[in-house]
């Protein structure tokens, strides 16, 4: 039986890297006595894969992982048992059964949605009309050219086709974050009513993986700010279909 789990990663757990999270979950499955399917050989590993690695320092409530178990399990019990084994900062949010021909999360993911705000040490953008600036950056430009570092060197790419949504406002506008499962407000970051907050939806996955930092570099340059952006990033959701009919990986 194949299962897809959705989980969150926040608070101090955001400093835990991708490979460490993998090992963390491997052990959590054993503690929760989940009947995981194991690979063959002298060093058997549980069959599991994450949808899209999350960078260190980024929080999320839209993490997905596919696992395989050797006998049928009750999904509600699975989520409960796993949450008994979680540390503060990781919650298993839901589980769903996958049918045999569902694409692996890793292969299916196309797009990610983020809520972005500023860290304390980047008190820039204070006196800017956020909504208008982002609108003109995203909508008025016919192309958004950035230099992307690749294995072979640097190349110029147009980000515009890979950005599906980009809006800005201030924390006064609760619609930007009120439905989140994780409280992103934190005294280390700029979360006052007048501080900026953004929603960004970009292409993610094995092809055209766009990091939010790249979009923000372009935005800052567009606004004539020389410093590199220092942003707090919270991943809200991962999607498996492209625009216009985005479907959550958990749907």
């Amino acid at each position: 039986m194949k299962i897809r789990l959705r989980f969150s990663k926040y608070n101090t757990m955001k400093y835990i890297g991708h490979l460490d999270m993998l090992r963390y979950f491997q052990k959590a499955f054993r503690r929760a006595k989940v009947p995981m399917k194991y690979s063959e050989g002298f060093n058997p590993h549980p069959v599991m894969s994450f949808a899209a690695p999350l960078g260190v320092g980024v929080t999320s409530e839209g993490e997905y992982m596919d696992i395989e178990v050797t006998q049928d399990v009750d999904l509600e019990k699975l989520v409960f048992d796993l949450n008994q084994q979680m540390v503060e900062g990781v919650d298993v949010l839901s589980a769903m059964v996958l049918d045999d021909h569902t694409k692996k999360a890793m292969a299916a993911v196309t797009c990610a949605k983020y809520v972005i705000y500023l860290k304390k040490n980047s008190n820039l953008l204070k006196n800017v009309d956020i909504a208008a600036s982002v609108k003109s950056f995203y909508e008025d430009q016919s192309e958004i050219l950035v230099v992307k570092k690749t294995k072979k060197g640097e190349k110029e790419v147009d980000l515009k086709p890979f950005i599906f949504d980009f809006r800005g406002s201030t924390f006064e506008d609760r619609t930007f974050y009120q439905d989140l499962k994780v409280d992103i407000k934190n005294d280390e970051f700029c979360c006052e009513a007048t501080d900026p907050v953004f929603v960004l939806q970009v292409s993610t996955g094995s092809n055209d993986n766009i990091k939010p930092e790249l979009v923000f570099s372009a935005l800052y340059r567009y606004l004539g700010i020389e410093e590199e952006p220092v942003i707090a990033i919270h991943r809200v959701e991962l999607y498996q279909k492209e625009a216009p009919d985005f479907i959550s990986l958990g749907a």
Partner: protein
Amino acid sequence: MRKLFLSDEILMSVEKSARYIGNEVNSIKKNPEDVDLRFCMCFPDVYEIGMSHLGIQILYEMMNRREDVYCERVYSPWPDLHKIMKEQDIPLFSLESQDPIKNFDMLGITLQYEMCYTNILQILDLSQIPLLTKDRRDEDPIIIGGGPCVYNPEPIAIFFDILYIGEGEISYNALFDLYISERKSGNFNRESFLRKAAQIPGLYVPSLYDVTYKEDGTIDEFFPLYEDVPKTVLRQVVTDMDASPYPTKPIVPFVQATQDRAVLEIQRGCIRGCRFCQAGMIYRPNRERSFEVLEGYAKEILSSTGHDEISLSSLSSSDYTQLPELVNFLIDDCCKDGVNISLPSLRIDAFSLDVMSKVQDIKKSSVTFAPEAGSQRMRNVINKGLTVEDILGGAQKAFMGGWNKVKLYFMLGLPSETEEDMKAIPILGNEIAALYYDTVPKEQRNGKCQITMSTSFFVPKPFTPFQWARMYGKDEYLHRAKVVNDTMKEQLNHKSLRYQWHHADVTVLEGIFARGDRKVGDAILYAYEHGQFFDAWGEFFDVKNWDDAFAACGIDPDFYIMRERDIDEVFPWDFIECGVTKEFLKREWLRSKEGLVTKNCKMQCNGCGCGTFDCGICLR
């Protein structure tokens, strides 16, 4: 929500910030307000190394069983964070509560190898605690050292308030009780507390003792400053392994630790008396945990941690009486749940090869021998009861079983070593390679065999029969390695042989620390204050800093290194009653000079002195 001590900006700018956040599975959360004593346990090296140490997990478990005590942890910040903390004047903090260590009652530092001595000072310095015991005030934490290095505590004596001699399970309770009652009395005074602590068995309070030296630099007298302070300090020993605390819910780090597995300590101490081996002497007598107890621990640890590997911890696992039962249990019960079994320090014989073939991939793994010396003469001198027949017989069985990689561990610079003894190392390697080609027909070979020989340079340690022995200079060590290397190249099967040797600079420094006296402490302080730390890490070890430090402090390294000690010399560590008596060690030193082998504890008791502990193998 958990608050971290370091800012997000700092955590995002250092390597592996997960080292500093705590919150690991099975780490203990208590409200610091609810306890009478806050203890911080420190392993003065980087997190991944420190988290792999079983001793800390044992004491963490034991101390936290007390409701009135909260034991937390700290490890050495890596140099990138060290720099930031110094620049921004940020005090070092514990992982659990993220509180500054300077606000704790006690800081316990485990000393597992001499090369961590500068890191002790890093911890104190970053914690903003005075480096020297004499400078500490009533409000500073009590600084306690423990671990194998304290069997010669003198080079680090000036940094510690208390050095705990022996196994931590025994005397901490008495120390905590004393501290709590002194604090509750309302007029806590550091000196009077330490004076009382010196009465607790196993606790050495260095500030209560003084040393005088003879003209030749050796010790004239070592004595307590006050009449009520004991003249000697008795090593503390757990007498009932089954009843002593064991961490069945050990902490599971996020960052991959060097030992990322469940660990079963099957026994303490070793029955064999290899004359170079400090562990073989200072952990006597050999004491086993019973199989039934270990069986329960294995199940509990695996289910509380989710580890997918389990390993045995002991000095010489093959000597554990119920090893077959234990190994069969692990294979039958744990393997089926996808748990890997790793079995270090097994003697290679039919039994161990059979077990290894079940738990590892023969094609990828190797068989390991530690003959420690190449010639039989030398092995007799060091009392290593492994004969060339044992090695060749074991290797042949391994080759027949499908292995083609052999690792061999040796030491260079052992007492009385001749050029012939050095050459015997690659000659033995060659013999093993030849045996492979004789044993395994061409069509069954999986390529060439690979015989890897490693040598470390021998460092004489306190409380061993070789504590009287001399060492050599760096050039001489490298010369010896060259003799081995050149001889290897002359061997018929040299293409199947590989040779690795250790750095010699570190060996010399380790030698100075291992048998140094109080004077050496000044050089450690000087070196740290001039930027030296993380000596155990090749990239940070700078021998020039140490040359400068010894010169500046008027210390002649040759005094510690080049001298064979007079049989009646007073050693800095003589005040420790370790169990093994100086008489026994002398006898062994003289026997080694005659190449006489001494039987192991299972075959015959040699009256080493540990019988007074009245436990373990001595009762048989």
